[in-house]
């Protein structure tokens, strides 16, 4: 193994985490409505499958976009040859217009400040390559998307130092937690180059408040560091409070080109969640800093967007009727679906963080833990995967500091499957709480001794066969 690089031999790709292991179990035994009704229901995949029909009907009405044609003429050759890393101008224009529309047109974005990348995975890694050297650090609020461990650290050699958020205030970022994280980095001799936040948050499913954003801006200004806002879920903010982009707050605070912080605020975007097109690999970097744009543009050589896809999406996103209708309908369907999940969980006596965005809920199962520990969280998780046959994501895989929280996705499966999942969960909780007395001793609402013994079975059953193939969120 020493023939390969350190990148190839250590586990810094992060794929041995439980987040990915759950997917492996799903792949071994996937639920199917007809062929495998007892299989594992996938609720660990943050995909948006609710609005494909809108895109399909647009395609049916706009055949030219599909057929490599423009004004009736074949442009296949030009597209096939087009490898300009500045991207198709019409596509970039359509992208910034779409991004602005999602932000209620409260900001104006310049296509020349947009860099296209192969998905947000590539965008995030590219940002880190541009902003930090190996051994330096970025601060990230917990809980955070498990894939960041790979995307931000793996090949860049950069460290993540967590900003510990807790349920005491709905996991919001505070001045104290920011400062503590910064001190922690200093203690570890890590030079902090920036803060990276996801807004709307994965896994919380909430949008950042204006106060939090002001706080962040003040903090990065004070420390003289960068702020990267991963706004991949910006189009999934389905109920109030409405989504506020960091770009909007820059405007609010009258930060313009002449202020130092202007150039240090950057946004990551993608069409994987809002439009439900993760396969197309469309990511973007937006920065006001010309040097960052220039460096990122050259780096995008390593992962450009297929010209065929740029052409198709350029036509799609330039249709303002489609985008307007899509954004509204997407919100409506997500809101309804989230409501169904929340009510299903409530019937099982489970609550979740009050969410207004994203494709998932941040679910509170602390009351179901044998003890307030991550071991207990893992035991519960394994039971849910192996016995209840639901793949959900344990909070520890998202680096949550409190045990007992789980991310449960709601937009990647049909409604009836979601209903079935909730029935299973309700049955499980019912059984869990209604354990009959054993040996004259009454059972507490927490795990009994006998249950504890049987649970150890699941610990050893967990395989480490690294076949997980899904890298997305």
């Amino acid at each position, binding site marked *: 193994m020493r023939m390969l690089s350190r990148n190839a031999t250590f586990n810094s790709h992060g794929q041995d985490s439980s987040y990915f292991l759950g997917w492996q179990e799903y792949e071994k035994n996937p639920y199917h409505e007809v062929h495998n009704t007892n299989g594992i229901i996938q609720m660990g995949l943050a995909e948006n499958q609710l609005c494909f029909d809108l895109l399909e009907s647009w395609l049916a009405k706009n055949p030219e976009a599909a057929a490599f044609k423009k004004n009736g003429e074949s442009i296949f050759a030009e597209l096939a040859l087009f490898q300009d890393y500045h991207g198709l101008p019409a596509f970039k224009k359509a992208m910034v217009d779409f991004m602005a529309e999602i932000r209620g047109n409260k900001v104006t974005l310049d296509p020349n400040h947009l860099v296209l990348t192969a998905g947000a995975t590539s965008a995030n890694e590219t940002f880190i390559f541009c902003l930090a050297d190996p051994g330096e650090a970025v601060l990230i609020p917990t809980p955070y998307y498990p894939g960041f461990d790979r995307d931000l650290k793996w090949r860049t050699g950069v460290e993540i130092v967590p900003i510990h958020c807790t349920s005491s205030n709905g996991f919001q970022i505070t001045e104290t937690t920011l400062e503590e994280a910064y001190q922690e980095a200093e203690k570890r001799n890590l030079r902090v180059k920036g803060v990276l936040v996801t807004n709307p948050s994965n896994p919380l499913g909430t949008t950042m408040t204006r106060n939090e954003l002001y706080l962040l801006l003040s903090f990065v200004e004070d420390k003289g560091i960068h702020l990267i806002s991963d706004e991949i879920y910006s189009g999934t903010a389905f109920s109030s409070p409405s989504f506020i982009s960091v770009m909007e707050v820059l405007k609010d605070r009258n930060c313009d080109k002449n202020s130092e912080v202007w150039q240090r605020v950057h946004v990551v975007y993608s069409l994987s969640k809002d439009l439900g097109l993760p396969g197309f690999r469309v990511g973007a970097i937006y920065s006001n800093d010309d040097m960052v744009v220039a460096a990122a543009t050259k780096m995008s*050589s390593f992962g450009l967007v297929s010209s*065929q896809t740029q052409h198709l999406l350029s036509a799609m996103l330039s249709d303002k009727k489609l985008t307007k209708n899509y954004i509204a309908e997407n919100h409506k369907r997500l809101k309804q679906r989230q409501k169904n999940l929340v009510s299903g969980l409530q019937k099982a006596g489970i609550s979740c963080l009050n969410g207004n965005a994203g494709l998932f809920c941040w679910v509170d199962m602390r009351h179901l833990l044998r003890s307030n520990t991550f071991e207990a969280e893992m035991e519960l998780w394994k039971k849910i995967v192996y016995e209840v046959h639901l793949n959900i994501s344990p909070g520890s895989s998202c680096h949550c500091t409190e045990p007992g929280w789980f991310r449960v996705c709601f937009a990647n499966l049909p409604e009836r499957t979601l209903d079935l999942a909730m029935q299973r969960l309700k049955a499980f909780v019912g059984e869990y709480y209604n354990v009959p007395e054993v040996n004259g001793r009454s059972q507490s609402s927490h795990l009994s001794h006998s249950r504890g013994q049987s649970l150890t079975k699941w610990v050893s059953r967990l395989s480490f066969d690294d076949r997980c193939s899904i890298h997305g969120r």
Partner: protein
Amino acid sequence: MASSASENRLLLSRIATNEKHGENSPYFDGWKAYDQNPFHLTENPEGVIQMGLAENQLSFDLVEEWIRKNPKASICTAEGIEKFRSVANFQDYHGLPEFRQAIASFMWKARGGRVTFGPHRVVMSGGATGANELVMFCLANRGDAFLIPSPYYPAFYRDLGWRTGVQIVPVDCDSSNNFKITKEALEAAYGKAQNNNINVKGLIITNPSNPLGTTLDKDTLESLVTFINQKNIHLVCDEIYAATVFSSPKFTCITEVIQNMNCNPNLIHIVYSLSKDMGFPGLRVGIVYSYNDDVVNIGRKMSSFGLVSSQTQHMLASMLSDEDFVEKFLTTSAKRLAKRHGVFTDGLEEVGINCLKSNAGLFCWMDLRRLLRDQTFDGEMVLWRVIVNEVKLNVSPGSSFKCVEPGWFRVCFANMDDDTVEVALKRIRAFVGQAKKAQEQAQVKSPKKRWQSNLRLSFSSSSRRFEQEGVSVMSPRMMSPHSPMPHSPLLRATT
């Protein structure tokens, strides 16, 4: 604001602010000449002809015909739309199974059906650019080095080393033996690296070669395999031009060679792409094919950073598994490349310009040594500026490929139509004719002087301005992907 700008610069990474992307060269002025005055047969017949771009534009008609006949290959047509959501949702880094199968099958056909490839070893990446970088990340640590025979593709500097921190150690090849890679040259380069405490992790070759346009013979390949086995280092074979072989000798893929040798397969890796063989650089289809299971495994995870769009995978899965189409395409493409190569090299020969004898690629390696005023790289630059600014052909000087001998130039011939080739040849004939005339006149006046030193071609003041000492030549457009071509019809139509 200036202090703020420099403060901002400090806040960026070393990678973002160093020049190792290789795109800042004073010589991009050569490209400016093309940008400012691009040739067009009817609208600008005196413009600069682009001969620096290794693109394969000769066989799009075949692809367009196939696309017309196969609407189901698109997920957006009425025939194919039923696949839209499953394809659009598909982000598995293993790739669509039918895509991997089609790639493995195409690789087999492109190598004359002499070796087979397993879909399970096919790993996607963002073009060959992404593939080469990915392989480096898997095989080498920051500070390690890879040997590369010169002359080599200029963008290797960026692709292999920019973000990886891997160093390039050139293996010098020269015209004394038609630029073959010798054991002595390999040992010399390896030894030099060792003496400088540089840890060599492998050797990377491009076969067929860019810029030479030649294929490596079996003996050379065997000696390379022996070398890397002995040293226990990796061998990466960039076979991006595999299907551009248009005449004998036939292409020998590295797989063929290792099958018959005692070789550790864990050291053998292939980089491939559809950018040259099919002419699809815009579709960003790069492939890493490794015989090392760990590299396949890790490479697959790394491919997350540059997967092929599922829309593109779906279309190509259909296209490349159409055996009749692939057969027809490969045969026709080779024929057309052969013809174009023939027309061009014959035209050059007529005026006494020789090219290295080649059987592949989208370019010729042109020998202009006898036209140099001085047999130095400065002399090469002087000649290059004349060719760009006076003859109005954008060609690539050998120094940009780190060639050790001045006077060689790469000239691309597959990125233009027949008429443009004719114009280019006409200009070359005129240029050489002028030079000869000047020589003859000089000899009449002073017979002893060598004709090269009397080459008095008028320099415009702009070309004189660019004369500089010892600056490396790197121009963005020799690298793929690259900076804009403002006269691309796509850009014209949309701005």
